[in-house]
Structure formats: C-alpha cells, structure tokens
C-alpha cells in the first residue's frame, strides 16, 4: 500500500513537472533557445500567485491566469527587446544571455521578496479524501488537474488557432513561414511569452505543493531540461508523460534508496538515455 501511495504522490507532482517542461520545450523547439532562465520564471510565477493570494485574497487557482498573463507580458518584452537581438548569433550566446537573465531575476527576487520560504496555503490545503486506504490530498490533486488543463489548452491552441499554426510552421521552416506572411519578430516574442506564461502558471501550482524561494530556479530549470529531452521536443504528450515518470522516480528513489541518491538516478538516467539513444537526440538537435 505504501508503494501505491508513493506512486500516487509521484504522479501528482509529475503532472506539474510536465506542464513546467512544456513551456521550455515550446521555446526550445520553435526558437531553438534553451532557456536557462526557465526556472526563474517559474519562481516569479510562484510569487505572483503567492502575493495575489496572501496580499489580495484571491483564490490561488483563480490567480493562475493572472500569473500566466503577467509572465506572458514579461516574456514577450524580453524576447522582443533583448533576445531577438541575438537569436542569429552562435547558439552558445543564447545560453549565456538566458543564464545572465537567470542571475538577474534571482537576485532581483531576493531584493524584492527576501529569501523567506513562501507557501501558498489556502483554507482547503489540508483536506484529503481516502479511497481504498490511499490518501488523495485534494490540493495536490487539484494542482495536477489544473496542470493537465493548461497543457490541454496549449495543445488545442497550437493545433486549432491561426497563431498556433504560425508557431508550428515557424518551428518547421522559418523562411517558408516568412513567405506566408508570418512576422518573425512578433511571432518569436509571442512564442517566448507563451513559454514563460506556462512557466508562471506552473510556478503558481508549485507554490501550492511546495515552497517558493528566490533560489528554486536552477533545479527547476535542470528538471525541465531532463524532462524535455526524455519526452522529445515535438511531442507534448511525451513531455507530460516524462514529467510524470520523473516525479515517480523521484518519489521512489527518495523513499527506497535515500534522498542523497535521487540525483544519481535522475541525472544518470539522463546520461544513459543520451548515450543509448543518440540517433533521436541528434536528429532534433
């Protein structure tokens, strides 16, 4: 029964990881930018929802769209007026500039919000339901469902809307998309904004199931990276699934092997996947 409970907890956390990684995968797949500041945007989204809840008394789930819109705007401006200036230089430069952004955002957050741990703790946080001896924490379950809803909305948007088609066309061939009337500067900014907005929404959910500090960014970036590679850039379902797999592996490893070994497992797995299946990795690189 313990095993089933651990699996359940892992799955619930993993859904959230999946949503977080979707934002990174979108930016990576379409813009070919590996956004090292992704985790920092997740952190800022967490603060958005925290202050909407603690300061203004808005229900955290109702605050998720606010976090999404605020982070979307930030992402749009950053891409339009900074990242767009360098997207055609060496690939390494996009890594560097997003790393610089990560440092700036982390320390701005430290100055503005202090290093205190913040948890988004609505009145129903402690509620849970017991089904066949399994405890289902309601808040975590709701966060899991919300993550899936966001992921589904993103998928529908990419498949069905004009903007979604333009984004997918750009991912395939920028020159051809341009010929069909796509304005790349605007489209890049919109795509980056979407990726950052998703990070923001995921951050709000993360704040409900865990704690937000200015320093959570780096690990979350690394986690999104691992999940994105496991899931594959062009496959959103694969990414959500990979997020759940990582969540379960983390939960299992910390209980059965000890928390000091969780990194060996998740990063060792990453290296193994890359070594054993380089064909797929090289094709999408």
């Amino acid at each position: 029964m313990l095993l089933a409970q651990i699996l359940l907890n892992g799955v619930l956390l993993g859904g959230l990881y999946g949503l977080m990684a979707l934002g990174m995968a979108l930016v990576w797949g379409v813009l070919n930018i590996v956004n090292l500041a992704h985790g920092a945007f997740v952190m800022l989204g967490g603060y958005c929802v925290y202050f909407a809840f603690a300061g203004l008394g808005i229900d955290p789930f109702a605050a998720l769209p606010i976090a999404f819109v605020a982070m979307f705007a930030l992402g749009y401006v950053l891409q339009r007026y900074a990242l767009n200036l360098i997207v055609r230089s060496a690939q390494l430069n996009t890594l560097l500039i997003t790393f610089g952004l990560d440092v700036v955002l982390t320390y701005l957050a430290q100055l503005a919000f202090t290093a205190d741990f913040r948890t988004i703790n609505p009145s129903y946080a402690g509620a849970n339901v017991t089904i066949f001896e399994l405890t289902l924490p309601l808040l975590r379950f709701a966060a899991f469902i919300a993550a899936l809803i966001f992921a589904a909305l993103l998928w529908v948007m990419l498949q069905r809307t004009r903007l979604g088609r333009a984004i997918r066309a750009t991912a395939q061939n920028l020159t051809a998309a341009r010929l069909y009337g796509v304005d790349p500067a605007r489209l890049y900014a919109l795509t980056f904004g979407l990726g950052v907005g998703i990070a923001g929404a995921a951050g709000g959910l993360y704040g409900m199931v865990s704690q937000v500090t200015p320093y959570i960014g780096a690990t979350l970036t690394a986690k999104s990276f691992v999940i994105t590679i496991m899931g594959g850039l062009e496959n959103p379902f694969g990414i959500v699934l990979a997020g759940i797999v990582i969540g379960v592996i983390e939960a299992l490893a910390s209980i059965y092997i000890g928390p000091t070994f969780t990194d060996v497992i998740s990063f060792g797995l990453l290296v193994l996947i890359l070594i054993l299946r380089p064909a797929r990795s090289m094709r999408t690189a």
Partner: protein
Amino acid sequence: MLRWVVPLVCVIALAALPLTGDDVLIQYGIDALLFATLAQAWNILGGFTGYVSFGNSSFYGLGTYGTAIAMAQLHWPFGVGLALGALLAVACAVLFGIPILRLRGHYFAIATLGLSATLAAIIANLDISGKNIGLILPLTRADNAFYEEALLLLIAATATVAWIAKSRFGTALLAIREDEDAALVMGINTTRYKIAALALSAFFTSIAGGIHAYWITFVDPAGAFDLTLNVRMVIMAMFGGPGTVFGPLVGAFVLSTVYDVLASSISTAAALLFGLVIVLAVIFMPRGLWDLAGGFRRDGARYFLQNIRAHRL
C-alpha cells in the same frame, strides 16, 4: 616582436608580484590565475570546437578529490596527489568522451551536465571521499608557492593553446567548429580530435582543482563539483574571446576583478550586476573582448550596432 615582448613582460610582472608582500593581493592573484587556467582549459574544447562543455566541473572535482584522497587518506605527497587527480580526470574524459562526443549542440551540453551531477552524487556517497562531509587536507601556509604554481600552470595551459592555434590539430578543431560533417568528409578523424581536446582540457582543469584543494585545505562535494564554477569558466572564455589564445585570460582577469570589486563594495547587488554585465556583453560584443579591441579600433561605436544588425532576427 611586440607579440613576444608583451606576454613576456606580463609573465615577469606576474611572477614578481609576491615581492610586494601583500597577502590580500596574492590570495586574489591565486584565485584569478586558477580561474584564468580554468577558462583557458575550457577554451581548448569549447572555444576551438564549439562543443559547450558543462562537464569541466567534473574534471575539476576529480582533480580536487584525487589530490584530497591521496593526501588526506593515503598520506601521499602533493605531487602524487596532483598526478592521481589528473589521471582520474583524463581517464574520465576519454572513457565518457567516446559516447558523449557523438552528441551535438545542446545535447552534448546537457550530457556533460548530467555527468557532473552523477559524479558529484557518487562521490557524496563513497567512504573514501568522506561522503557528504568532505575531507580536510594537511595545512600549509605557503601562499607564495601556490601563487607561483598557479602561474606556472596558467603559462603551461596558454602555451598549449598557443601551440594548438598554430598546429594541424588546432586547424582540425576549428574545422569541426565551422562544419563538422564537412571536416569528416575531408578525412579528419573528428572523434579522435575531439577526445584529444577534451582530455587536454580535463588535464589542466584537474591540476587547477588539485592546487585549489591543497590551498584551501578542504574539499566537499558541493564545492568540488560546483556547476556555477563551470558556468564561470564558460562566461570568462566567452567574454574574453573563445577560440583565441589570450581572449580567455583577458576575460578571466577582467571579470574576476569586476566581481571582486563589486562584491566588496555593494555585496548583495554584486551578483545582480554580474548578470546584467553578461546580458549586455552578449548583445553588444558577442565575440568577446578580444574581437571588441580590433573592431572598436576599426569602426568606433558603430561596432556595437553592427553586431546587433548582424545577429538580430
């Protein structure tokens, strides 16, 4: 003529620095020299072939722990410790280089990142390396000796890069950076060259780690396999000018100084400004200080606009 005089004068001036007897200056000097060595070592693979390695922190960690285990656990002398660390790092570079160097772009970067994290976690669980607590090395108070060792190491690394830049080996590495498939078609054994570059990079990185370990007399997994250290190597090399002989040194010295001055005057905002410097540098001088020097003399302030025009969407 000038090409030899300027470096020679710099080396003599640096070697004479301990004569000032200024402890703070010497300690800053050891740090800056070791950072410059790390940036230069990263440059061998990253600058010349364009393969962005985040695995250099694993070579640094192996060098650190090789020295620490030899001295603290086995009571061997410092020199043997350095050799052990270098052996571990080069073996690791060759062993993991073979599968990992088949990956390209971001995938290579993340595989090396994974390698560092895995090694750090393994070291943190071994008895011989003192698990999470770390090891304490025998205490020595010989900052001047450490300073001269770090200087010698930096000279060796730079001389190696200078040789690479002029040799067939370096030309092959540059060909890999420009177009790896074309290099392959031209008959260059790209795998062998990349592994050799990674092994050289690992060698210098591990020795720097060993010197640092003995200097501060304490090692732990978080410090030895610190990823931000690797990021600093990359930034220093990029900031100075990747794929050049002296660019990484200039980048390392300038950024070390900027960071130390900021950290002592406005501590909390230092990291913030450091991040801003990186963002602005990438936008306005994407090919580093070394290129800026020539470009600015040629075009003046228009150099910055030209960079933006060349790389924007």
